[in-house]
């Protein structure tokens, strides 16, 4: 029931929102729905009642596909992330005004529903459905609200990801044709009989879709443009949650279905990811645009996750699982600050900013904390994840771990230079008469910061939450 409700709430809320014309009403209603969803998600996290956590009805009998939703530790955590992120986004952007806000929030919620569906669905075809359904609202959002180049950029983003997901569809159908009981159910997918060469092909078809979503170097070029162009609220949703769809896909579907193939391809993927990490970090160092910098740093972080996923190390996987949540939280926080600055001062260029700390100390402090989380300082939530992930990577190969660890230096470089260029130094013309961030932004950031600290000091609950999925995954790997 909870599982179903978790998806139904945003869908219904979104559909209603389509018809709400008045902006203020839309905002209040949206916030309400978001909070309700959050409550449901929390209920899901704390309930252990299987009947509540699973929902299963016949859907396409002659295709062997059922409407199966399930909340295990992994999907609980990601569902929680998705559910948290939307209210926070709404709060943080509460003062922003959108042309026909009703539709804006409606699409946001449909997108959320799609992503929740991806995380919850235990049926391959359903998974694919939600995978696409999360994309369509995002397409409309990105190309309706945003910078002037948004339409072309979003076009690219859409076609890029669409190609990927269609390739994934082939893989899904193919595996389906090889399942013992001709069903799309997760379990029967796990037991699909694929020959070595087949699983090689299908692995890549499947993986490319996920790699594009993550995005993994060198399939990442849609990301910075999209993040830069689309309205920040949307960017938060995309980078905070949608990116996780790729990683999630690897954990829930790819690795268990193709254990051998993922073993044999691990080296190339890990190499690519590590290259991508360094590459993205180096580019981030040279960025002058705040949004682009955050985008590239996100690429670097996700690259690490992707690399660790294929090390087949329990520790590392555990790290990835918690990091998915934490990265979402941190990056959303960074976007909120970026949005606050852009909305207030009308620019994201470091070269035009400076000395903001004198004018907006609160924002500065909160931002610094989030930045520290971004570079994975101990006692922030990111540390646990990164520690475990690097640990796993080290167990896979010390050399690669050593190379990858350079990223923590580079991330410190660009993050701190970002802080310095924006907040430190003397005020410049633009920041001369800036004021501190408004209440709603502070509220949102403080919530995030609290999450950052709490899970940084005491990560154990999240680790326990994701234990079972790790065990399951490890048992899958021979």
């Amino acid at each position, binding site marked *: 029931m909870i599982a179903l409700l978790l998806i139904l709430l945003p869908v219904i809320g979104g559909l209603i929102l389509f018809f709400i014309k008045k902006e203020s009403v839309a905002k209040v209603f949206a916030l309400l729905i978001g909070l309700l969803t959050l409550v449901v998600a929390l209920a899901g996290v704390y309930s252990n009642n299987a009947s509540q956590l699973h929902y299963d009805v016949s859907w*396409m*009998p*002659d*295709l062997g596909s059922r409407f199966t939703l399930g909340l295990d530790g992994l999907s609980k955590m990601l569902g929680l992330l998705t559910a948290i992120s939307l209210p926070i986004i709404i709060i943080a952007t509460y003062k922003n005004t959108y042309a026909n806000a009703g539709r804006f929030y409606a699409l946001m919620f449909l997108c959320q529903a799609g992503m929740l569906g991806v995380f919850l669905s235990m049926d391959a075809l359903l998974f*694919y*459905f939600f995978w*696409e*359904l999360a994309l*369509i609202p995002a*397409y*409309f959002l990105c*190309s*309706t609200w945003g910078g002037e180049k948004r*339409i072309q950029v979003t*076009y690219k983003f*859409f*076609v890029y990801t*669409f*190609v990927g997901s*269609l*390739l994934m*569809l*082939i893989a899904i*159908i*193919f595996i*389906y*044709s090889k399942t013992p009981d001709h069903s799309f159910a997760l379990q029967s997918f796990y037991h699909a009989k694929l020959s070595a060469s087949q699983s090689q*092909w299908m692995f890549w*078809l499947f993986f490319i879709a996920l790699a594009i979503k993550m995005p993994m170097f060198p399939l990442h070029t849609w990301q910075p443009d999209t993040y830069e162009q689309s309205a920040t609220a949307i960017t938060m949703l995309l980078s905070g949650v949608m990116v996780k769809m790729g990683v999630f896909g690897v954990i829930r579907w790819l690795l268990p279905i193709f254990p051998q193939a993922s073993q044999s391809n691990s080296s190339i993927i890990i190499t690519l990811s590590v290259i991508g990490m360094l590459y993205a970090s180096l580019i981030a160092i040279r960025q002058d645009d705040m949004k682009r910098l955050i985008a590239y740093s996100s690429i670097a972080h996700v690259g690490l996750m992707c690399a660790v996923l294929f090390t087949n190390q329990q520790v590392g996987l555990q790290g990835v699982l918690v990091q998915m949540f934490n990265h979402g939280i941190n990056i959303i926080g960074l976007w909120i600050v970026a949005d606050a600055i852009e909305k207030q001062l009308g620019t994201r260029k470091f070269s035009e900013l400076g000395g903001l700390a004198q004018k907006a100390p609160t924002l500065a402090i909160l931002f610094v904390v989030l930045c520290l989380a971004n570079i994975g300082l101990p006692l922030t939530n990111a540390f646990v994840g990164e520690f475990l992930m690097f640990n796993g990577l080290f167990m896979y190969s010390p050399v690669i771990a050593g190379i990858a660890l350079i990223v923590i230096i580079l991330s410190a470089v660009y993050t701190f230079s970002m802080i310095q260029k924006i907040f430190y130094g003397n005020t410049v013309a633009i920041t001369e008469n800036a004021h501190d961030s408004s209440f709603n932004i502070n509220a949102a950031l403080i919530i995030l910061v609290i999450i950052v600290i709490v899970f940084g000091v005491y990560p154990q609950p999240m680790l326990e939450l994701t234990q079972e999925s790790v065990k399951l995954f490890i048992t899958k790997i021979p």
Partner: protein
Amino acid sequence: MNAIIFSAVWGVVMMFCSFLIKNKSSFRHIAVVGLLLLLIVNVMDTNGVTIFKVDTHNMLSYSRFGLLFNSIAIASTLIYVLISGKDIERIGSYAAEYFVLIFFVLCGVAILSSYNNLLMLFLGIEILSIPLYILTGSDKRNLKSNEASLKYFLMGAFSTGLMLMGIALMYGGTGTFSLDVVRTETGLYKGVSFLEIIGLLFLMVSMCFKVSAAPFHFWAPDVYDGAPGVITSFMATIVKVAGFIAFLKLCFVRMTATSAAIDWQLLFAVIIIATLVFGNITAIFQQSVKRMLAYSSVAHAGFMLFALFSLNDFASKGLLMYSAAYSLATIGLFAVLVKMKDVTFEGYNGLAKTQPVLAATNAIFLFSLAGIPLTAGFMAKYYMLASVIATGSYTWLVVIAVLFAAISSYYYFRLIQAMYFKTGEPKTEVITGSFKVGLIAVAAIIIILGVMPQYIFTWLYF
């Protein structure tokens, strides 16, 4: 049989109406009534209630599949007449005759869905085509329409010639026109006859022509572009799909029988790739939405050909699904298109502002054509891909197909962009409320089929 006879009869009835009734707009209603009755009798037929007991001497054979397809075709025609009947009347001064011809075409469709004899195939194709030559040229003072009908006619006749040559050779090989050859006869007809193969090759070519599969598709874009919009939507949907159904039956019976001697899958693979390439790639560049849709219909032919490529359960189901999905979406798109004053992409700019309902429904139709989940189009594509994968070979063909599907999304979403994200002042005819309702209904059906595809097949099993 019901459908064949009834459609012919109702065509005659409407012929008489044309000079008995003066009020033009009433023809539409008569046609709607006729189509409703047609649908009813066909459904009756499906349930074994045949009004006319005719011994067809094994010329026609009825299967649930064919009858179900009839129902789909008739239903889509009904929807088509409902939402763009006015525009049919507006083509020229022969309102009734157009409906007459449409009914005759339906008669041809009914024949094609149940033929069991090459003669009936031939007749059906002709009964299908000849009215279309007329309808294509029905906008007489429009040179484009003239050109279209001339091209269509000449090439159609030529392909008829090819078809007849094929049939003749097949007859030479097997000694019968009936589809189900009993191949265990005395002496000569052991194994596969070579003449039959050549014949089938010719027949295949002419059928490919009818369903506008590359490289025999060249007529399609020009004719679809030149013909009056409403007629195009009829031709591009129901007629083409009927051709596919006929083709499918031919393949199921004759080509599987001869597959020992000739690898039809290879030939079809070539044709499919050619069709996808020509259809999709050329559609990208088009500036006129009408022509873009023409090319996209070619592209969809490429997808439907998968059913003929992999002759299995998925294929037949998928072809039904595809026919429904594709027909509905295209009919809807054309219904809006004929309302537009300017049918280029620019003409659609900012439609979402002025006509939100049209834009929204259009978007759904385009999603369906692009194969986005939760629309019927996705399920259709799904079945097609699944059918090929079920054959176990030629998986690379699926990859190619999928890449082209992605390309197709490129030009479909171009239209969505124009409607939603570009700003402009689109000029449209007056849009009545009922028209909007019709569009919404079509969109709803598409969604329902997309969510619950099995509903369309429930006819198949009971």
